[in-house]
Each structure stands twice: as structure tokens, then as C-alpha cells.
């Protein structure tokens, strides 16, 4: 009972942390996430817009912007609630008082980390929905409900392919848990791989003509449409990486180092907590440590393809928390703990 109260208090701190960054309105230039839909055919990044379309019967997009802000706040609350539930499950399975305190304080570290204000900051972006889906899937996987756990990662890439970077730590720990526990390998590997297949389907089945028509009918400026054509139609992994290598990385090495140093401290502390709490129950300890670290920093790979540096680096805070949770359950063969 005291732990529940402490976690609730830390969750409230997470709420303050989100408020610290919460933007006043939908960020400039990202209206298309809410306006693009499947009306003209299957196109990527249009699921949110398709779900939002029915609301446009009740008001114009401008009138409905406060609804997007409300949805954003609701998603942030959902993320905090899911993190609380996941941490509670791990704490409940621990007998050692030191471990229980360390896990609870790791949750506090996550709630205060730069992840939370950054999530609040990006109103209108779809990151909060991607993270919510990933956390729901982790929650289901922890309960060994793999049949349901595959659904969120199936949907995530339909919202945005960057779901792969949110999902990377989950995929890594699921795959490694097969190696160390040799249990439910097929289910876990399938769950881990689902978003890769889903992303491939999104890329393969997108209709360029439908995307062109959808962009043409958007009520935004021509400048924005031009940018969107490049973003929706021409953007590939290779072109994104080439752009980053040519324009963003040269001369900015010190900036990248500064950002990584600042944003990854909470991740390092959460990983240290994972080692402290679960080292003794890990099988293949040193290899598991390498896997845990790799999983925690895996979302940082997104900066090879996108220039919103901190927006993607802070995902590592969440990734570290996911690996901490998984390291005490999936990687320790204790996912059956109630």
C-alpha cells in the first residue's frame, strides 16, 4: 500500500514535468497529421487523420484544435498511468526492500526526465500515441497476452514509421528473453517483429497518386504542400540519412555530444538501477548487460534520419525504463509474477 501511494505521488510529479513543457497549441506546420486521410487511397501517416475526420463534421479544423490539445494531454496522462502500472508490477514482484526503493526512485527519475516535458511540448505530433501503443503492448506482453500484445505494434507504423524506434527496445528485450529463458520464443519473436512487417507493408502499399491527391486537397499553404510532397512522397530511409549526413551532422558534433550528455543521464541511472536490482537474477549476466544498454540507447538511432535531436534522444529515457521493467520480468523469467 505505501508503495502505491509513493508511485501515485511520483506520477503527479510526472504531471508537473509534462506541464513544464506543455505547448499552448498545435505546433506549427504539422496540421497534416490531422488532415491527411485514406479518403483518396492508402497513404502513410494518415491513420490519425482518418480517425479525426469524423470530428470535422462538428467544426472546422481551426475550431477543433483545442480537441487535439485535449487528446494530447489525455495521451500524456495515459503514458504516466501505463508507466505507473508497469513499475508497480515490477515492484510488487520484488521482496528486497532495497530493490523496491530503487525501482520506485527509478520511476521518479523517469517522471522527472526530459522525456516528460518533451512529450508535453510537442502538441499535435503523434509521438505520444506511438509511445502509448508501445507501452500498452509491453503491459500485455508482461501479462503474457501475446495475442493482444501484437495489435498495438501492428497499428503503430500506420500512424508513423518512427514507431520502429519507440519499439526497438521492446523488440530487443523480447528477442533476448527468448535466448535467456527459452520460453514462448515464437510468440515473443512474432510480437517483436510485427511492426517491421507493418512498416514494410506501409512503405510497399502506399499509393503515390493517392498521396498526391490527398496533399493537393489539403487546406494549407502551397509552401507547406511542397514540403509535404517531399515528406510524404519522396522521403525514404536512404534520402533521410543522406540529408542528415550532408546538412545536419557536419559541424554539429559538439552539439550532438552536448545533447546526448544532458539527455542520457536519466537513462544511465535507470540502467544502473536495472543492474543493481536484477543482476543476480539475470542469466548470461554480462551479455544481458550489453543487451540492456543497447536496448536503452536504441531509439537514439532515429537521429540518423531526423533532425529534431532532443525529441528522439529523450525516447532513450523511456527505453531505459522499459528495459528496467523487462529486466526484472521477461529477462529474468519472472513475467508470470502477478
Amino acid at each position, binding site marked *: 500500500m505505501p508503495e502505491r501511494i509513493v508511485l501515485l505521488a511520483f506520477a503527479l510529479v510526472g504531471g508537473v514535468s509534462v506541464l513544464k513543457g506543455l505547448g499552448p497549441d498545435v505546433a506549427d506546420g504539422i496540421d497534416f497529421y490531422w488532415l491527411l486521410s485514406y479518403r483518396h487511397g492508402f497513404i502513410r501517416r494518415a491513420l490519425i487523420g482518418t480517425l479525426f475526420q469524423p470530428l470535422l463534421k462538428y467544426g472546422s479544423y481551426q475550431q477543433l484544435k483545442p480537441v487535439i490539445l485535449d487528446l494530447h494531454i489525455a495521451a500524456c496522462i495515459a503514458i504516466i498511468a501505463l508507466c505507473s502500472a508497469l513499475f508497480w508490477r515490477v515492484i510488487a514482484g520484488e521482496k528486497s526492500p532495497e530493490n523496491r526503493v*530503487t525501482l520506485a526512485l527509478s520511476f521518479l527519475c523517469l517522471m522527472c526526465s526530459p522525456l516528460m516535458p518533451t512529450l508535453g511540448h510537442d502538441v499535435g505530433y503523434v509521438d505520444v500515441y506511438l509511445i502509448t501503443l508501445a507501452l500498452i503492448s509491453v503491459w500485455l506482453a508482461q501479462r503474457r497476452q501475446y495475442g493482444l500484445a501484437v495489435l498495438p505494434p501492428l497499428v503503430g507504423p500506420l500512424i508513423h514509421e518512427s514507431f520502429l524506434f519507440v519499439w526497438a527496445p521492446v523488440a530487443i528485450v523480447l528477442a533476448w528473453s527468448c535466448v535467456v529463458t527459452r520460453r514462448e520464443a515464437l510468440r515473443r519473436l512474432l510480437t517483436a517483429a510485427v511492426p517491421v512487417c507493418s512498416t514494410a507493408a506501409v512503405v510497399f502499399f502506399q499509393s503515390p497518386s493517392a498521396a498526391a491527391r490527398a496533399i493537393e486537397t489539403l487546406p494549407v499553404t502551397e509552401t507547406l504542400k511542397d514540403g509535404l510532397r517531399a515528406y510524404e512522397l519522396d522521403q525514404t530511409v536512404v534520402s533521410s540519412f543522406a540529408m542528415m549526413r550532408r546538412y545536419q551532422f557536419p559541424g554539429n558534433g559538439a552539439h550532438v555530444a552536448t545533447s546526448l550528455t544532458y539527455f542520457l543521464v536519466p537513462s544511465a541511472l535507470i540502467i544502473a538501477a536495472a543492474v543493481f536490482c536484477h543482476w543476480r537474477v539475470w542469466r548470461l549476466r554480462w551479455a544481458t548487460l550489453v543487451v540492456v544498454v543497447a536496448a536503452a540507447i536504441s531509439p537514439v538511432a532515429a537521429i540518423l534520419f531526423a533532425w529534431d535531436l*532532443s525529441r528522439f534522444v529523450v525516447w532513450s529515457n523511456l527505453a531505459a525504463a522499459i528495459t528496467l521493467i523487462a529486466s526484472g520480468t521477461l529477462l529474468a523469467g519472472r513475467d508470470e509474477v502477478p
Partner: protein
Amino acid sequence: MTRRRLLAVVLNVVSVAASIFYLLAPTVYTFFSEAQLSYSRAPRWFATTAPARVTARFFDSYNATAPRAERFQRQLSCFLTDLGATHRAGCLHEIRRGEAVAGPAMLKIASGRYVAYFEFGDSEACPAGGEVRLQILTPGRFGRILADFSGRVLPGERIELPFQLKLMDAALSALEFRATGINECVLLRRAGWTQPVTAG
């Protein structure tokens, strides 16, 4: 105390310290070439704490070579928005009584002592100069006026305004140049700022 318990104490103390630090620190949003720090809906006193200052110091030099700031510095008058003033070809601005120009949008530079300048010219509509108020300010929640001048300016005149952009001002606010007409008419030809005289 066992070794394990000692380890737990050390780890937990560091975790709590880091949590307090990051909770009080501003929201940091970085791109590859520019960093923006802000407090949106947190108490104002958050900005007076040590974590706020440490974070501001840590990211202060981040914006020293920001390409956007360099572009603004080359042709600032082209990025000023007319608030009732009349835009003329060549990024000139005719400013009459009650009219103003202000901008640019989201100019982030490192802290330090700078000198801002405004250069005036003449046109058929504004042949003899006029009275104008020139300000360098940091608008927004943590806004301050850093330099202020009011007086008559003549065509061909250059007004220089030294100002100090302090660490927290540089971190939490953007820099804005503003010219407001008080009397008659002036033609703003150029505006800009020098490289920092000293670090903030």
C-alpha cells in the same frame, strides 16, 4: 551496513538528486544547430533555481553559431514584421506615428554584451526623419527590455544601442528588435547587432 545496502543508498541519492535537477530544469528542445529552453506552465521560481542556471550555462554556447541567427544578422531588416509600418523594396520600412516594426521570429543567440544598431535613410514619403523609439527586448513570460532609446533621428543617421544579454535571458527568451514611430516619419534602412563584446 552491507556493501549492497551502501550501493543502494549511493544509487538512490544520485537518482533523487538527478530527479530534482531535471524537474526544476527548463524544458530543453534541441535541434542540430539550435537549442530552445523554456518553462511553459511551471511556477516562475523554477527559473531562479540552480538547475535552471546550470542547464542554461550548459546550453549557452549551443546557439553561438546557429545558422538562423547568422542569416538574421546578415539582413535583419528583411526579417522584421511590419506592425502597421509600410514595407518598401530592399527591406526598407517606413514607420510613422503609432506604427512599428518588430522581429525577427525566435532569434536565439548566446549570452554576452552586444551592440545593436539601426540605420535610417530617406524617401519621398519620409524626407526629413522623425521621432522614434528603438528597443531591444526579450518578449514572453520572462521578458525584459534590454536597451531603450527615444529621440529624433535624421536620414543617414546610425543609432547604436549597447545591451547585455544575460545568461537566463538568452536561455529562456528570444531576442527582439523593435522600432516604433513617435512623430513624423522615419525610414529604417538596416538593423543588426555586432558580435559579442564579452561573454555573458
